[in-house]
């Protein structure tokens, strides 16, 4: 096995895109900037990665270039964040429809306004419905592994969908972590050369991106939906194969000390590590609490989630994005809907915290758990609330 090296997580993400021998990278750096793109351009400049690096003039063009290169059969990677991701929004819908297996690292950051460069999930939660497979990393190792995994899943002939790998801005993207980085030779055991099913080729002309009249639009949407749903099998089996080859096991939902837990905290991303510490602390105080986190967000792992939550009496769901005027944060709403009408469904409370780079501490997690227990006991409470709002 390769030895661990201390490396900035953004650079590790670039190294993953390099290890799979990406053909085209199109990216725009400024919205806001991460080191992923910088390092990829270095790898290309130094001849370590034989790829076309296209320094586009906007994120909108970044995704457009990616679709063009993927449509001729090139393995394509890009990275984005916050405002840039939102600028891509229009084109994000089109990549799955054209079945272009692009892989994108999304460094999760807050949406303006007010303008912010810091971490939360408001960028990605606005992109839930674009038809991409979406995974969330907890630490640097996972970022590297999930990017490798993303190429394997995206290019599977049964899938052919684009994949977003989410990593938290700053708390992951800008920290140095010890990471076992697989090299190109090791990755080749897992990632086979990309064999596109249909490409733009003058010898075999095809029309891509045709007009969807009302008679065919619904069916076209249904195909994306069913393929995205069915991709879960490939996502899971690709993780199993990853574990077999490299020894690290990944699942759609990860649990921590949920055995015998009456209360379970639900999180996503890097804050889960703080949440684990909080769980340990509370367990020491004899609060029967556990932790659950989504690694796979799209397709939503419904069966796995329902299984994992069985027997839990109280759920405290953390959202790192506000859904203005809604019943709660996006994760909360989906979780509650997933359990609606289920026998013995837990009492669910939603909490929004950690917006725009505000730290979430173990105390805050304890507060969420205690409140969730109290609301459950009383049989009523606010549907959701913001945690850690300064009074003055």
């Amino acid at each position: 096995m390769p030895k661990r090296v201390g490396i900035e997580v953004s650079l590790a993400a670039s190294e993953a895109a390099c290890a799979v021998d990406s053909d085209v990278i199109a990216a725009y750096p400024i919205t806001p900037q991460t080191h992923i793109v910088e390092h990829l351009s270095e790898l290309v400049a130094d001849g370590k990665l034989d790829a076309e690096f296209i320094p586009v003039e906007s994120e909108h063009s970044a995704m457009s270039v990616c679709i063009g290169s993927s449509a001729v059969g090139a393995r394509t990677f890009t990275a984005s964040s916050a405002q840039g991701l939102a600028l891509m929004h229009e084109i994000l819908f089109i990549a799955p429809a054209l079945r272009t297996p692009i892989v994108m690292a999304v460094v999760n950051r807050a949406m303006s306004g007010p303008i912010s460069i810091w971490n939360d999930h408001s960028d990605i939660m606005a992109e839930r419905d674009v038809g991409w497979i979406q995974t969330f990393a907890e630490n640097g190792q996972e970022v590297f592994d999930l990017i490798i995994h993303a190429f394997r899943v995206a290019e599977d002939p049964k899938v052919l969908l684009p994949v977003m790998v989410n990593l938290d801005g700053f708390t992951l993207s800008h920290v140095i972590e010890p990471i076992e980085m697989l090299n190109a030779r090791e990755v080749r055991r897992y990632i086979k050369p990309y064999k596109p099913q249909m490409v733009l080729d003058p010898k075999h002309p095809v029309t891509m991106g045709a007009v969807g009249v009302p008679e065919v639009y619904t069916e076209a949407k249904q195909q994306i939906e069913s393929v995205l749903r069915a991709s879960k099998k490939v996502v899971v089996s690709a993780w199993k194969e990853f574990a077999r080859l490299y020894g690290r096991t990944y699942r759609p939902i990860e649990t921590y000390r949920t055995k015998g837990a009456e209360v379970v905290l639900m999180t996503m991303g890097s804050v889960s590590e703080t949440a684990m510490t909080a769980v340990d602390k509370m367990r020491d105080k004899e609060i029967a609490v556990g932790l659950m986190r989504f690694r796979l967000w799209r397709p939503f792992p419904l069966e796995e989630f329902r299984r994992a939550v069985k027997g839990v009496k109280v759920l405290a769901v953390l959202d790192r994005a506000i859904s203005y005027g809604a019943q709660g944060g996006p994760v909360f709403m989906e979780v509650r809907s997933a359990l609606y009408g289920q026998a013995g469904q837990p009492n669910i409370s939603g909490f929004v915290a950690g917006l725009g780079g505000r730290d979430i501490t173990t105390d805050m997690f304890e507060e969420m758990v205690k409140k969730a227990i109290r609301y459950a006991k009383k049989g009523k409470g606010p549907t959701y609330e913001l945690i850690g709002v300064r009074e003055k």
Partner: protein
Amino acid sequence: MMKAASGGFKKFTPKTLPKFEPLAQGHRACQGCGEVLALRMALKAMGKNMIIASATGCMEIITSAYPQTAWDVPWIHVAFENAAAVASGIEAGRKVLMRKGRLPKGRTTIVAMAGDGGTADIGLQALSGALERGHDFVYICLDNEAYMNTGVQRSSATPYGAMTTTSPPGKLSIGQYTWKKNVPAIVEAHAIPYVATAAPAYYVDLMNKAKKAAMIRGPAYLHIYSPCPTGWRLAPERAVAISRLAVQTNIFPLYEVIDGRYILTKKIKKPKPVEEYLGLQGRFRHLDKKTIQEIQERVDREYEALLQKATLAEVQEEST
């Protein structure tokens, strides 16, 4: 750099036009559409070995309503404002795949096509980016001077005084109150090897320019005048005639810019008055004498400026 434009370029003549048809008949263009005519001729000239990235617009919807397609060449449509970016990706993707031995080596003409809205307005940034990066592709702007596909809304390429559904003439308005944006000049400022204007009435000239654009390495830009009888309130059988008049009145002069040098490809000795051109189109029906005179003066001035640039190029050529 411009071998294709000077030596070694075999011009088409009316007798040697290619038989190849990239665009099948039976598409859904309006009667008398000058845009699809211009497109067909430009693509015929470029040959079968091409890949097209199309913007949203008239030419996209009339050719690709699933499950039918009018395209006999590989063609992709992604969105409105990004044809140049998609073409960039196609070009870069093929380049690296050839380098890595996963695609047989050889040159394919990569074409990006868009209307005037997709070029002068919403697609200008993507176009500028692709030109600046120097991709080997041909960008075709099919300029019918408004957003025709969506019901004749004004664009920045709509001519002064024209009536559109968003530049209606009224008590306080003459119609379009801005002058047509000069996109070829903006493109030329990117110092790309080839820029040309063309009109379907001069179809051999149009096809030769298209062929040249395809042969040139690096970005090439064709700005093609594309009459729209529907949007211009013009009799459908006058599409070709109006495009001839646009050239003969100097409203749409034909020229090339080769490595920065302006060359007039159709010199008009005795220009016809603009009134003759404007009078055939319902979109200009409301214009009074004073406005027509204003348009005449500006057309004369702009043509003079173009002539100066072109003359300058000729003088420089003689002295070197």
